[in-house]
């Protein structure tokens, strides 16, 4: 009876997690969705506590761990800057990975508690396989996410680190891990070093897999690791025979995979080429150097203010530069001023603007921009031809017409925002030399209807606000 009820409750919590993701289909339902998620988690935890009926020592361990961990988590959640979300997500993933390894270790050492012991003191074969899978994926998620965090947070250079013969090394390690899994199965999971060797080698492979990938590709990596952490959870769910864990693992696994796919698709790159690495800051410099002599029209903040004040329709195109300059609040202010002047203001967001999916949306939301003024690429792209000014702030690749015309270009085939169709394009960036993520020059800078506004995104926008 207890087991039945518990299984039912875990099912309920799995369903609540589904509803949590479902809520995200629109901003209105999203907050309720998040509450469903919290409720689901509470039910899963309460059910487990009821099932294991912990003694005092155990309770102290658990309460201590949850209070400390929860406190840290809450603190981080409150204080983190919105611009640091990519790092934060990477950091959180690393913790899930490590937790999965720790749980697998515990199951390995105390199989009776997990009901996976055989009569002769060993561990069931199927459970060993699941544990090994959970450990390996968890460990890769852990170190991989740590590297991704360090690259995103700037603790480590974004440049790809290409070891010689790295593919060979990786394959050798993978073979060693498989051999160890076979060994531990033959031995019924009685030898501790097998487990630790699997964990250790997986930690190593996590590092090796991620260091050759350029810093700018980290968002895809983070999403991929998210997916991995889901599959690790599902593997452990089979061992623990826990419906909530299995459902969640499948949800998270799909979510990460789909987000990676969306990003690769929107960048027109293959997932394989991202994973093989080597794409990064290096080639950028050379490509940029070529365009430096061409003539362009520079303008001042006052010029920009004047042009926009007299426009009837302005579309703002934010990109990574807005995030890194934290200019979102200034942009909102500028838009408010323009709206007071009777100008129609909208925002256009490219699916991979910024450095993670939805990055620009969350920043604009932070600056109190109503989400019904913010449009996706497909919904606004044909409005550029009817607008007077496209205000491109810190976006670059996502507006680059080369993507349509130059099959040699690394961004060829990527759908772009047609800002060039606007009567005037105002382009905010710090210098003519700086390039975007893909490291290619942008033909738009040199067009007649483009005016470059060189300077920091935030400072420039603040000055425009003064000018208005």
């Amino acid at each position, binding site marked *: 009876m207890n087991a039945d009820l518990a299984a039912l409750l875990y099912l309920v919590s799995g369903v609540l997690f589904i509803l949590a993701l479902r809520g995200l289909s629109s901003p209105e339902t999203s907050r309720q969705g998040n509450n469903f*998620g919290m409720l689901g988690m509470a039910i899963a935890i309460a059910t487990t506590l009821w099932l294991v009926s912990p003694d005092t020592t155990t309770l102290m361990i658990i309460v201590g761990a949850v209070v400390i961990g929860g406190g840290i988590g809450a603190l981080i959640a409150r204080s983190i800057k919105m611009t640091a979300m990519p790092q934060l997500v990477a950091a959180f993933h690393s913790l899930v990975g490590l937790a999965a390894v720790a749980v697998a270790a515990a199951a390995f050492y105390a199989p009776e508690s997990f009901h996976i012991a055989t009569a002769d003191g060993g561990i069931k074969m199927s459970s060993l396989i699941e544990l090994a899978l959970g450990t390996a994926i968890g460990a890769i998620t852990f170190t991989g996410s740590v590297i991704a965090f360090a690259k995103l947070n700037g603790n480590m250079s974004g440049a790809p680190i290409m070891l010689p013969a790295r593919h060979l090394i990786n394959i050798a390690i993978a073979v060693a891990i498989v051999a160890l899994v076979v060994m531990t199965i033959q031995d019924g999971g009685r030898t501790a070093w097998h487990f630790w060797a699997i964990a250790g080698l997986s930690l190593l492979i996590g590092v090796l897999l991620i260091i050759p990938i350029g810093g700018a590709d980290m968002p895809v990596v983070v999403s991929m690791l998210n997916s991995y952490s889901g599959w690790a959870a599902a593997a452990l769910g089979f061992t623990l025979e826990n419906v909530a864990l*299995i459902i969640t693992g499948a949800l998270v696994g799909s979510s990460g995979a789909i987000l990676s796919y969306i990003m690769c698709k929107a960048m027109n790159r293959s997932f394989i080429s991202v994973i093989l690495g080597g794409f990064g800051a290096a080639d950028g410099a050379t490509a940029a150097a070529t365009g430096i002599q061409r003539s362009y029209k520079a303008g001042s903040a006052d010029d920009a203010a004047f042009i926009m004040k007299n426009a009837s329709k302005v579309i703002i195109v934010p990109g990574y530069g807005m995030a890194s300059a934290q200019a979102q609040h200034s942009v909102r202010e500028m838009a408010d001023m323009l709206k007071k002047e009777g100008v129609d203001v909208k925002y256009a967001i490219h699916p991979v603007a910024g450095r993670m999916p939805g990055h620009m949306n969350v920043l604009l939301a932070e600056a*109190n921009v109503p989400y019904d003024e913010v449009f996706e690429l497909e919904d606004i792209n044909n409005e550029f031809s009817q607008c007077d000014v496209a205000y491109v702030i810190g976006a670059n690749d996502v507006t680059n017409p080369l993507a349509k015309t130059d099959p040699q270009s690394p961004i060829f085939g990527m759908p772009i925002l047609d800002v060039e169709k606007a009567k005037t394009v105002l382009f905010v960036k710090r210098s003519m030399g700086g390039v975007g993520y893909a490291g290619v020059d942008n033909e738009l800078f040199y067009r007649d209807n483009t005016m470059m506004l060189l300077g920091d995104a935030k400072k420039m926008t603040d000055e425009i606000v003064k000018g208005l």
Partner: protein
Amino acid sequence: MVDPFVFYLAIFVLAIFVGYYVVWSVTPALHTPLMAVTNAISSVIIVGALIAAAANANVENGWIAKGAGGLAAGLAAVNIFGGFLVTQRMLAMYKKKEKK
């Protein structure tokens, strides 16, 4: 009697279908909160941590399991609180235009 493994597999397979559809229906504007919330819910691995922490201390290696469980519970708790709260914070920012 059918081996429960088959049932878990069925649940897993169906959940992948659900995951596929539910994630595709997420609006791109909320992809960042999606990443944060999947993070939070994947910490349901804490159920494993609680079981580990409740391992019998008197058996061989019992304390290792308890320790690993406590560690995992702590890590998962960081994620649960951090993940859900940061998602909540983000979602609270998405507002419609006020009617004037």
